[in-house]
């Protein structure tokens, strides 16, 4: 099977090999059957992320005082269930106003909590890779061809209510089962996807190449052999979060 790979050589910008490699692993994983969605459904979610950026209703809601104040329909690009389309569009275009009500509504509309976590993982992967390409001036990578097969449908028994919108695997438990790094501290965001453990592994792989290990976030770690200082990294990170209206 021919798989679409990410390659920035035509952009004229030299990109670190580990960045390209991690993005390709994520891209290939995106095309494969996940834990709850098929490969075709995962690629369809990715397609909705790109459609969301040109969705008139998303733009109207983003500009409204409340996202619930404007009625309409999404400019959907796939035949995914409406609740999944809405979730993908909202996460892509208006993340700062997502709430427990939003998550509960999505789950009540038929996207299970585990499906929602995996959907968020796919949306975020596409946003990362497309955002990177846009920043360096490269074309967005063609979406990969879906790989056949069935989702594994394995729900971790260790996941419990810890105050997130969805169940998560506690820090100590996740370390015992080898899901989290052995470290005194990992930020809560590093455990958000743990209802779908493969999503945690994928995010951790991307973190290492693009930023640093989760365990290094709250330390004075200075990147070695990278032409950027920690202060510059933190300014970009904080500015990005501010522009995404992210309180976390």
């Amino acid at each position, binding site marked *: 099977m021919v798989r679409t790979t990410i390659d920035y050589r035509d952009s004229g*910008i030299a990109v*670190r090999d580990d960045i390209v490699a991690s993005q390709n692993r994520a891209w290939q994983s995106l095309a494969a059957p996940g834990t709850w969605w098929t490969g075709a459904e995962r690629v369809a979610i990715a397609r909705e992320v790109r459609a969301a950026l040109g969705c008139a209703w998303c733009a109207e809601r983003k500009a409204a005082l409340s996202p619930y104040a404007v009625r309409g329909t999404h400019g959907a690009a796939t035949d995914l269930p409406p609740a999944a389309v809405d979730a993908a569009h909202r996460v892509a275009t208006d993340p700062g106003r997502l709430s427990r009500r939003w998550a509960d509504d999505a789950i009540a509309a038929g996207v299970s909590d585990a499906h929602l976590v995996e959907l968020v*993982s796919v949306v975020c992967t596409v946003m990362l890779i497309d955002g990177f390409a846009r920043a360096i001036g490269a074309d967005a990578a063609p979406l990969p061809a879906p790989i056949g097969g069935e989702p594994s449908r394995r729900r971790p028994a260790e996941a419990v209510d810890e105050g997130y919108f969805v169940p998560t695997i506690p820090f100590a438990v996740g370390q015992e089962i080898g899901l989290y790094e052995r470290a005194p501290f990992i*930020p809560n965001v590093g455990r958000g996807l743990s209802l779908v453990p493969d999503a945690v592994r994928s995010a951790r792989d991307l973190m290492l190449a693009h930023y640093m290990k989760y365990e290094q976030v*709250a330390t004075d770690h200075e990147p070695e052999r990278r032409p950027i200082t920690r202060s*510059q990294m933190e300014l970009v*990170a904080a500015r990005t979060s501010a522009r995404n209206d992210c309180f976390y």
Partner: protein
Amino acid sequence: MALRASSKKTGGDADITAITRDDPIDGGVAHGALLCELVDAVIDASADPAPARQRLVAAAGPDLLVEAAAVLGMFHLNDRVADALGAPLDGLMVDYRRNLGAKMGITDQIEGRLG
């Protein structure tokens, strides 16, 4: 927190208002204003990031562009995971948020979000 701490470690004193100012400033960080301009242009879907990208490359070279793009991309992911799945604020970040709110004159808004 990490911006200020990392700046102090290298003998600087970053101005954390650089994070949210509409008019980008360096804020004590090398090429800070250019990095902020790049972030703004990439996140604004109606903007063309090319001018900001070119200014950054002209001043600091393409390697810094790549590193900035990597961090930007990563926080597109982290921000959405946190917001979509309701990641609770880490305990060590609460005081930082309060101090940041006080410095920026938005104490009420910060307290409202902290609940």
